[in-house]
């Protein structure tokens, strides 16, 4: 009993009993591992062109076929996956970082500070976020087209708003709980209250929302790639290429099917995992 499970350990145990979440996690791990180690095992250069091998359908030599320049599609999908997953994780990290701090400050101090901070969020909500992203991307356009960093920042900057609202709501409701009062009476200051008492208790919704932010960001990046504003060689760009060769005369179905398949599978896996985490971290869902 004394070495019993803490709240996080219990949540993990609940997660382990959720087949949907487990399948999602397994699929995600498989895709991530393939993207991380696949290109290295494959030994194919995703950028090497081979004019003789243009538009080859899937074969033993090229499992996913080749594109218009004869490049191996499997290698390109795996390398593109690295980009897409990295964008998803990095932009989510940016959004969690900003949103958590912002929301926590608003919730903790309340009053005028809260009013002001939340009106800024409301205003940014009102601005179409695609417009914001494109604006930020254009600021970087001259120096860094196709570079990943501006995309991380741009996507992170539009995704933190909901996170800030979630954290603020959590902090507002936790702030008056007796354990927070008890810590205050014991002499704890704002920083300690926030880091030791409020944020750990708000972590559940943050983790869940972060898990659901990753697919949203990946999708958003794909859309940017579609517009030619994304990161070079990502799933979004591959899908865009695949779409561009769809025509009634000849079908290069593999160029569209494989990148979209990976994209869809990843989004699905992340959503399953996010749902599972939400159930696992919700204390009221104790079985």
């Amino acid at each position, binding site marked *: *009993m*004394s070495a019993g499970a803490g709240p996080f350990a219990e949540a993990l145990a609940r997660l382990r009993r959720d087949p949907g979440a487990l399948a999602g996690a397994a699929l995600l791990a498989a895709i991530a591992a393939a993207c991380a180690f696949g290109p290295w095992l494959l030994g194919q250069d995703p950028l090497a062109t081979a004019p003789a091998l243009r538009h080859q359908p899937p074969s033993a030599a090229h499992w996913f076929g080749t594109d218009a320049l004869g490049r191996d599609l499997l290698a390109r999908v795996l390398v593109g996956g690295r980009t897409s997953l990295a964008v998803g994780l990095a932009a989510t990290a940016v959004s969690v970082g900003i949103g958590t701090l912002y929301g926590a400050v608003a919730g903790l101090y309340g*009053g005028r500070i809260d009013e002001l901070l939340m009106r800024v969020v409301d205003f940014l909500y009102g601005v179409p976020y695609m417009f914001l992203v494109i604006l930020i991307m254009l600021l970087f356009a001259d120096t860094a087209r196709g570079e990943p960093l501006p995309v991380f920042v741009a996507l992170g900057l539009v995704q933190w708003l909901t996170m800030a609202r979630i954290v603020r709501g959590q902090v507002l409701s936790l702030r008056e709980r007796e*354990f927070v*009062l008890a810590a205050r009476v014991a002499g704890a*200051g704002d920083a300690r209250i926030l880091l*030791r008492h409020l944020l750990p208790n708000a972590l559940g919704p943050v983790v869940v929302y972060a898990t659901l932010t990753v697919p949203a960001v990946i999708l958003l990046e794909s859309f940017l790639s579609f517009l030619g504003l994304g990161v070079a060689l990502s799933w979004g760009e591959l899908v865009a290429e695949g779409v561009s060769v769809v025509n009634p005369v000849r079908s290069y179905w593999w160029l569209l099917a494989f990148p979209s398949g990976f994209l869809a599978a990843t989004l699905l896996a992340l959503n399953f995992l996010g749902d599972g985490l939400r159930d696992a971290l919700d204390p009221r869902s104790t079985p």
Partner: protein
Amino acid sequence: MSAGSAPAASSLLEVQDLSVRFPGEAGELRAVDGLSFRLARGEVLGLVGESGCGKSAAALALVDLVAPPGRRAGGRILWEGVDVAAEGARGFRALRGRRIAMVFQDPMTSLNPYLRVGEQLAEAARLRGAGRRAARARAEELLERVGIGDAARQLRAWPHELSGGQRQRAMLAMALLGEPELLVADEPTTALDVTTQARILALLRELQRERGLAVLFITHDLAVAAGLCDRVAVMYAGRIVEEASAAALFTRPLHPYTEALLACSPPMDGPRGARLRSIEGLPPRLLAAARACTFAPRCPRARPACHEGEPLLEERGGRSRRCIAPEAELAEAAPRG
């Protein structure tokens, strides 16, 4: 515990004219309105009243922790004669943990579910400057003192692994870690079952005597207050209506509200199945400054003058009350033993 009032000179805490207000749609709610009391070193003062009379708001205001948008709207809080409120936030932070500790009503929510019991207790000690190892040792020692067996092991337990009584014991240990001079106990036993309640109260009394603690004991339970307190102040509608030694208050209430409250407790020798008595009407909404006695609309002894002016809290014979009815009229009603 001896009854009797403390001389003003040795006051540990003196509250003068304290007000707490909460903004609301219909105007500002005066949860606490002109509350004054004195507490001597080592004295146990009960603050008794029904729900919503401002007991808890007053307690939180002592350490400046009224939840916004509520606020302390004036009054002086004198600690050993020095006005803390005048020093602002710094003054209150100096009180918290070192001079004043608090125990709250619900032991289920007063421990952080994401910290082990030992981490939370040690935190209270470390906030007073103890080193990591010393803090842990103090936590273990106090956990042992409040009657939690196998303290070394329970330090590693999570809050949800403790029972309600154990948690309230842990909260007491946490409150005592800062070696406070005043313990504010806000309904510390209300959420516990009767047996546990009796044990916690016995422990509280023991700790109070052993450490010479002053205690401000907030409760709605007259019987609990009678058993524990030296003096009892009865609150109604944000202010004190009567204050006396516990013995005097319960044997000879001199305010109709106290009298009515006492009449609500079922008599030990009453007939079985008799209906419980209650006070007719509802407490007033505290939106405006009182212009008349706030209890008058519910008072069986009200006279026309009661609706015309607010009586002052008058001291006489070591006790005080806020009522104009002659003492003899209240005293002649059969006193309850």
